[in-house]
């Protein structure tokens, strides 16, 4: 059985030639939650956008393949690629405030996609949406479907977006820091919902986050990203038991502990960062040589 998502040696550059993704390889197996951790600016979101085909126009993919259920996205015509990505993937976005169109009612936004992209009948789409709203524990679907986004709370909006992401039964969902914009009490519920729906629907998730605590809770495997480079990849349990790369260890040490809230936060060690910098410089050198 082929991987749900297989990224091989993906490199992307900015117009000035700087690499933002450095030969990234990672795969997501069907039904698996794959975590992608790193600091802000490490390129986590970039990978998600590359998979979904919405990279900013300034970022250019120069090398590597992305296979979605065995189909090479790079080899498809733009239109066929759009259709494939639209039918098989979905995004749970970071900011539920801007991810819903402010001038359209929730109901039409949710059913629209099923009707227009997947060609469902309006009735079927409506039934499906209500079923999903029930799954994300929205108790008054009638009110929610008639609402405009600004009439709902952040947590409600995120539930709506989760329901919308699962509605079309995608094979892969990219969850881009889906809990970052929410307050802590809501974060937990939302995480639990995502995991629950993921299990019930058997959807693979590429979970982008900077929060190691979340990684430990929900994922089966992890890739640790630094400056667009995968520095470590392991089963979640193994990674937390015995982190191999010094950066991973430093990152774990830097995580605040609720058991000792008054301990001062530890930044990532200078020596570790220096080591990473030379590692990356070496990798760039090696990469430039064959690429001129």
């Amino acid at each position, binding site marked *: 059985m082929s991987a749900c998502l297989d990224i091989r040696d993906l490199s992307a550059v900015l117009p000035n030639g700087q690499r933002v993704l450095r030969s990234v390889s990672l795969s997501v197996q069907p039904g698996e939650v794959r975590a992608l951790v790193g600091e802000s600016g490490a390129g986590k979101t970039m990978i998600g956008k590359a998979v*979904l085909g919405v990279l900013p126009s300034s970022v250019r993919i120069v090398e590597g393949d992305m296979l979605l259920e065995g189909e090479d996205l790079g080899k498809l015509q733009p239109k066929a690629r759009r259709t494939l990505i639209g039918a098989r993937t979905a995004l749970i976005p970071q900011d539920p405030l801007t991810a819903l169109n*402010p001038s359209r009612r929730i109901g039409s936004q949710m059913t629209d996609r099923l009707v227009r992209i997947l060609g469902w009948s309006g009735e079927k789409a409506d039934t499906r949406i209500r079923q999903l709203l029930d799954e994300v524990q929205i108790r008054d679907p009638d009110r929610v479907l008639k609402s405009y986004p*600004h009439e709902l709370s952040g947590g409600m909006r995120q539930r709506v977006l989760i329901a919308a992401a699962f509605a079309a039964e995608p094979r892969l969902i990219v969850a881009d820091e889906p809990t970052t914009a929410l307050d802590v009490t809501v974060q937990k519920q939302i995480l639990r919902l995502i995991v629950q729906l993921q299990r019930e629907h058997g959807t693979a998730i590429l979970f982008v986050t900077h929060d190691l605590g979340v990684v430990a809770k929900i994922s089966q495997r992890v890739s640790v990203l630094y400056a667009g480079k995968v520095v470590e990849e392991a089963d979640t349990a193994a990674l937390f038991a015995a982190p191999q790369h010094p950066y991973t260890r430093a990152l774990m040490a830097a995580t605040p502990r609720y058991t000792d809230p008054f301990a001062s936060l530890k930044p990532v060690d200078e020596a570790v960062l220096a080591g990473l910098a030379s590692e990356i410089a070496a990798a760039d050198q090696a990469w430039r040589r064959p690429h001129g």
Partner: protein
Amino acid sequence: MDEGRARRRGVSPRLWLAGGWLLLALLAAIFAPLVAPQDPLAQDLMLERLPPFWMNGAEPGYWLGTDSLGRDLLSRLIFGGRIAFIVAFSAAVAACLVGSTLGLIAGYFGGWADRIISRVVDVWMAFPPVLFAILLVAVLGTGLSSVILAIAIIDWTRFCRVIRAETMGQSRMDYVENARIAGYGRIGIMLREVLPNVVPSIVALLSLEMGIAVIVEAILSFVNLSISTDDPTWGGIIAEGRLSIHQAWWVLVFPLITLILTVLSFSQFGEALKTRFDPVLR
């Protein structure tokens, strides 16, 4: 929420006053032959420069007095309103269609489309608008349709600039990205996702533009470049009133008041509509 409610309360009187005046003026213009007390073109030198109704020497039936040729001022204002409204609606709608479409395209597609459209707008706006209008009418010839065309040709840039900026802001929002992931086409996203969010601005601008069109038409008829001199126009009446200001001030003052009220109402109405149309402010 409280702020929203305060805003709503603040909106209503403005909307009603502005809308009320516009409706009154519009109805009077549409039913001018029924409403106007006198024939706007009938001259009677026995009745020249009659003062408005509250002054000594006023004649019944000539509410706002008469001009130096004995024509009823109120009737002329009502008939002048016809031309003002026809020009306001057609010119504003034409400018809006052209400007908003180009603004949407420039803002949403960016790149070359944006560069070309923005440069054209810059060049266009370098012309002084009133001079440009006079020039255009001189070239196109006088007449109602040339006036409308001239205003549309000059003022589409107002729509284009604002709508372009709004569209650019909206296009960066996550919901547009979401729609792209879902597989919508670019034009579909522009029309279904972005357009509804710029409609409030379009409506406000449209109303504002109607006011501007009324002024431009008045200016053109003031300098005798609008339509045939027989038909009364607000600008034309003002021009005539200017000549007899010392003998009959009302011939100048009443059309001015009418003009100012109408233009002000259009702009206030637009602002109020914008808040009404915007789901977040509503």
